[in-house]
């Protein structure tokens, strides 16, 4: 994504941030909507649009789990693995998804067809709906059984990829 588009996105929200550094986050999130992850060029463009050094921008991007500096699947499925969800069977949901997508059971990962990424999340604030799952940056939903979770990713696989990949 080029710096001008990022600037155009930031201009209307600029006034909401007292410290200009805080603009780096919305800029990165927006830049990511194009490819679903951030390339070197995207980060350089964010640097240009915000006035911080590319190295600083990359350090911010590398800090946060939901900012991806490497390619991920068209849809990212985050499975909560914190206490409340675990007590409600989150690890069975996790195992079922990893099994179904053929990814590493320890770290998660992206399916061979590049459609789905399974990743762990810490408490998503939906403890009352455990075991819960968040798709990209959509609203978290639950509770899921392993079977329901597998059905969810199957549906995601068939559904058209959103135009903007907010994650």
């Amino acid at each position, binding site marked *: 994504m080029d710096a001008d588009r990022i600037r155009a996105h930031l201009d209307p929200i600029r006034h909401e941030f007292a410290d200009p550094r805080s603009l780096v986050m919305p800029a990165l999130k927006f830049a990511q909507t194009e490819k679903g992850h951030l390339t*070197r060029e995207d*980060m*350089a463009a964010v640097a240009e649009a915000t006035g*911080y*050094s*590319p*190295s*600083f921008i*990359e*350090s911010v991007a*590398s*800090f946060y789990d939901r900012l991806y500096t490497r390619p991920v699947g068209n849809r990212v499925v985050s499975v909560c693995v914190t206490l409340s969800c675990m007590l409600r069977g989150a690890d069975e949901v996790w195992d079922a998804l990893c099994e179904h997508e053929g990814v590493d059971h320890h770290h998660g990962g992206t399916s061979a067809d590049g459609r789905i990424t399974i990743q762990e999340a810490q408490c998503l604030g939906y403890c009352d709906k455990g075991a819960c799952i968040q798709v990209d940056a959509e609203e978290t939903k639950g509770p899921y059984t392993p079977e329901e979770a597998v059905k969810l990713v199957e549906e995601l696989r068939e559904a058209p990829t959103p135009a903007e990949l907010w994650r």
Partner: protein
Amino acid sequence: MAEYAPVDLTVENQVEFELDGRRVAAPAGTMLADACYAHGVEIPIFCYEPRIGPPIGACRMCLVEVEGMRGLQTACSTPVAPDMVVRTTTDAVKEAQDGVLEVLLANHPLDCPVCDKGGECPLQDRTFKFGPGTSRYVEPKRHQPKPLNLSHRIALDRERCISCFRCVRFSQEVAQDGELTMQERGARSEITTFSGDPYRGRFSGNIIDVCPVGALTSIPYRFVSRPWDVQNTPSVCGLCPVGCNTELTVREGRTKRVTGRPEPNPAVEEGWLCDTGRWAYDASWSQARITAAVVREATGDRTATLEDAVDGAAALLRGRTAGILVGTAATVEEAGIAADLAGGALPGAVVARMGIPGGALAPLRALPGAQLGDVDDADLVVVAGGDPSAQQPVAELRLRKARRFGATVTGCGPRPHALEALGTFIRTAPGDLAAGVASLAEAIAAATRPVVMWDEADLAGEPAAAEALAAAIAANPAARQLELGAEVNGSGLRALGLPDAGAVLDAVRAGTVDALLLVHADPLDAPGRAAWDAALEGFAGPVIAIASHADATTERADLVLPALTMWEQEGTLVSMNGRVQRLRPGARGPEGAAAGWELLVALAHRLGVVPGYRTAAAAFRAVTAGRPAFAGITPEAAGVLGVPLAAPAQVAGASAPPPASGEGVPLVATRTVYGGAAARRSAALADTAAPAELRMAPDTAAAHWVNDGDRVVLRSSSGESGRLTVRVGDGLPEGVVFAPLGAPGSPTEGVLPADMAPVLVRVARVEAG
């Protein structure tokens, strides 16, 4: 030790507090870690480095007990308070120190036996002194590629990093190059640049000095030596007129490393060096180094022993009237002895210095001067002309620091440069610096503690601007001037009273001298070279050069005496701010070479006049005696940190250059320290060597019928340049062209007059790009 901030225990109204049962005092605002150190109590630290900036409390190594405060406090970020009761050796403190070190070492490879830092490593030392002795940690450690090249010169060993953030903060806050950051988080945190690109910076090497462990090491010094096998000598950098204080690491007669001093000079470099000053030392054994005397005869060149060569030089000079040219990097001793030859061994000799005549600068130099350290307290810093980031590297860091401390930065000048981003800068047309100066006068008058940095070369060329600037500074009694010099020892040569090179040039032209002695002087590589080329064309007398490296002048000398370099000899240099500082010999230098001052003494002996000195220190005393600028200055007074000249150096033979004449487009020339001559002699810096490029804006290129990549030559009323490659760039002002001084073969020097008067050049394409 440099890691703690110096504390002045003599000021009034100190804060009294109790330290381990003793009643002590320190000035208000002093951090506990520094106050304790000043009173002989070492609090271990890692992340704290007061030169980098305020404490960040990242490592927790400095925990101490403060009565009445809950939990332990970080001594690096707790200021002293009245009647505070501080305990640094209690069980709680001990336990905290053990704990912190155990965690810091949890992932540390403890490969001290193969680590360059071993023996001079704060982590090693503090673990011995404050650490637990054993670790309970038996799990496998984190493994990383060993080592990674952060650049051509810096190796990064991530396993050893303790995430103290010193290097990152140096890059972000001191050098402000924005290059280094900590990426990822927690146990995966790592130091890196953008996408792992090589670290590009003019000051990158300082991160090696500040790293408290062996994570960042110098590639040219990798596995070269252990701290107990070397001698460290405090010396001075002689590559530019800033005069940074350095420490030379010497082993087996060779300079193996140059670092910032562990006890930095707060008035000059504050411990920081530019990358040129840090890594150029391998120029000592570069290809161009002259290792044996050369005698040029009709039958061809032959090498000679030093004894024979000095005899030969004396024979060539005997009975003749010599012109003696002293180069801008020659020491006070070399220049002074050369000057004294005129009164003794070489009667009637005309002795002059290379470099900018600078007659127009007398009013500026006579104003109260500042040292670089004084820039810290300025509320306004003005940069008149020049480009400190290219020409006086470490001055850039002071300017950035002043800005960090809240000073306003402003300035004017003909060339765009890296420091313009620090404040409001006015772009002046070449030759019209006076207009820029006029617009700064109001700000200078209104400031409480202004420091005005002015560029020697730019203002020397524009007398009207120099006069206006001097008036603006004089109008505010609190204002001080700080010269951004162009020549390594220019101040020293002026203080000795040497006239500018025009004196010798005129004598050569008039035929009143019939021999030439060049002391580290290369008139064929310097501005004004065209005039010298012409003058030497018809010169029949012998030319004798004392030089350490081959240059255009040694190529045509009849006899070359090999001299030592600044890393190898004793001597004195005077910085651009008039600070008299001593070079101390580190390495021995090649077998067949000797210090320039010794060669001159030997020459005087051979010519039958025995000088009254045999050591460099005695020579310094003898040659500075009776020279008012050096009043009261002795080698002892210069000590380790140097001392400012008592009186400003006067310029002999004042003459102001004329305004630009001829026709064409104005040329703005910039000296390059980073990537300049030193970089081309040094293998370590080879990748930084600046190309010989003529830069200009698109419309200017179109107006001169040249395109990016074309090879061109320039012609001015002073002469013709060597070949330059055209680079068309946006962001440059139109109607002016830019070229570097000190590029390979000194192409630009050919069109410039020695007095640096503004020139107009015609651009002629010789080869399409």
